[in-house]
């Protein structure tokens, strides 16, 4: 029997170098100590409410609902959080935990830059040193976020290896962590990597689904019929799903980045096109070739441009509790523009993948059904890239 620690069905585990084992064990022990500590929880809650601006709004998208003519659509507005995305929920939790562990330095990987910005923000707030690894390709796609991180006092290291995107940033952050452990916490940004990260990040993001539940009960007196979120590693999705997992009447739908389509090689839709593997510390589904070489995935969205998926999502897929659907670049860009014009909300291109699927699903459901779509981040950072996609050269 393989290590039962941190397993979600067969997925999860701790496939990492020996050098890091005591670090993840120490992290797990610290997390178990603080997760039920009332002082820690109060401190975190104060940060989330007073600093990050929680609870985030659950907004009834009336125009979108009427336009699509089916289910009632609510938007969970994680884009309104401080730093503009759900990433801050996890980062404040991990930074506080790291501080309690006596760490003075945070390192992080970032794709779109939202997690890097959130980590740099928490480090500035808590007086910690911060180094962010970002694929060189992404530093170009998301130049504004690179500037934000530097403004916040973080060092941004462009990663040139491999595809120079999120997976390479994760690899480089792991390499950095093996070289400097005693004062450094690796603030992983998604529900991935070795145990205990998928559990810690999920717990810190579960605030999203807890709020959706209480907010919707207040507004509608019932639970939603479906919750839709985009999935790269899967942190905003697991955060949106988690509290509803026992409520089997609630459909949980994760939207993967199909890039140019799941029938092409230019895709990042892991559950649609990947298979079981061992990578970045976890057993899960990965886009890979027949020899297990990790595939150079592609999506217009830097935040979803990752060849794997968090182990809990892989398990929810296996047991049929959640559905995972591919959404192409073109569909996401159209949804990006649609939400801007219909509701006056510019979503992150990542979140636009979820909006795109809501556009497909809502008209197929009757008007008494309710869909919640998580807008995981705001889209300012994407405007230049979307303009380029539409053939316009925009200088920021």
């Amino acid at each position: 029997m393989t290590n039962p620690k941190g397993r979600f069905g067969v997925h999860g585990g701790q496939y990492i170098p020996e050098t890091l084992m005591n670090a993840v064990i120490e992290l797990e022990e610290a997390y178990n100590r603080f997760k039920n500590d009332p002082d820690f929880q109060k401190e975190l809650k104060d940060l989330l409410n007073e600093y990050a601006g929680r609870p985030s709004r659950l907004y009834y998208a009336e125009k979108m609902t009427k336009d699509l003519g089916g289910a009632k659509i609510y938007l969970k507005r994680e884009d309104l959080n401080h730093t503009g995305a759900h990433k801050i929920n996890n980062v404040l939790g991990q930074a506080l935990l790291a501080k309690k562990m006596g760490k003075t330095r945070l390192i992080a990987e970032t794709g779109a830059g939202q997690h890097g910005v959130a980590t740099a923000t928490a480090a500035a707030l808590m007086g910690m040193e911060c180094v962010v690894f970002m694929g060189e390709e992404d530093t170009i796609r998301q130049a504004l976020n690179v500037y934000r991180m530097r403004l916040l006092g973080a060092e941004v290291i462009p990663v040139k290896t491999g595809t120079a995107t999120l997976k390479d940033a994760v690899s480089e952050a792991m390499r950095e962590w093996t070289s400097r452990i005693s004062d450094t916490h690796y603030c992983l940004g998604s529900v991935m990597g070795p145990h205990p990260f998928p559990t810690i990040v999920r717990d810190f993001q579960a605030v999203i689904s807890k709020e959706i539940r209480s907010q919707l009960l207040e507004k509608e007196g019932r639970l939603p019929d479906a919750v839709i979120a985009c999935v790269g590693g899967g942190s905003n999705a697991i955060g949106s799903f988690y509290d509803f997992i026992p409520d089997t009447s609630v459909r949980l739908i994760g939207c993967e980045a199909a890039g140019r389509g799941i029938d092409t090689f230019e895709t990042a839709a892991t559950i649609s096109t990947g298979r079981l593997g061992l990578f970045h510390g976890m057993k899960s589904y990965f886009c890979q070739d027949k020899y297990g070489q990790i595939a150079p995935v592609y999506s217009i969205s830097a935040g979803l441009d990752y060849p794997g998926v968090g182990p809990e999502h892989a398990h929810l897929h296996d047991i049929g509790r959640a559905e995972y659907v591919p959404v192409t670049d073109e569909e996401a860009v159209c949804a990006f523009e649609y939400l801007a014009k219909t509701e006056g909300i510019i979503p992150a291109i990542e979140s636009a993948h979820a909006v795109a699927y809501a556009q497909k699903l809502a008209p197929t459901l009757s008007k008494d059904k309710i869909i919640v779509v998580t807008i995981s981040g705001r889209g300012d950072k994407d405007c230049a890239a979307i303009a380029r996609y539409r053939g316009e050269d925009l200088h920021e």
Partner: protein
Amino acid sequence: MSNIKKAFENGKAFIPFITCGDPDLETTAKIVKEMAANGADLIELGIPFSDPTAEGPVIQNANLRALSGGVTTDKIFDLVRDLRKDVKIPMVFMTYANVVFSYGAEKFISTLKEIQMDGLILPDLPFEEKDEFQPLCDKYGIDLISLIAPTSENRIAMIAKEAKGFIYIVSSLGVTGTRSEIKTDLASIVKTVRENTDTPCAIGFGISNPEQAAGMADLSDGAIVGSAIVKIVEKAGRNAAPEVGRFVKSMKDAIR
């Protein structure tokens, strides 16, 4: 027990590493033969992986060169089948867990037996996860090599007690690559290892010259050298074999 013990019967063991297929498999074959002829006691053959998270830039680049040259696990198995006609010293594969898992663990490990490989090193498979492959390695008589790191501390005894073949002691924090200085208290790690097992141990990571190799072998049962050799191949390309041979000889002479 496999043939690996023979590697530790000629005094201190010198264990060179090479990435298979860098720059091509013909060169790898020549290099392996040179290594064996010049005193290597055990050879680590790297099966390239797209995302080698335990490697520094030198071996990362070698992996990419090999993969872009079209090397695959099957082609490397064919290389070993051919090499085994001449090379009789113990050899182990060094790769990443997904390469084994994705190929089909039983198909991979049974092929190792068939082509007379002696062991398998997977730097992303710690003690807690070794049961992913250990039962199959036992079934086919392949030694799944354990690694011990400078941070292992309270874990050393547990790892050493179950170690097979030899123990790979990682000299320093961080990834593979040459280092000017190794600061870890390796003597105390080796002492704990010895208290818990008779399995030999060799030190690797950061060793690039005969003086360092002698020092490391003096502390343990042998020295493992990777990046310094891969650098020679990076520079000399298809003509690297004679120079690698001279390098291996100088290292083995230094630790004898």
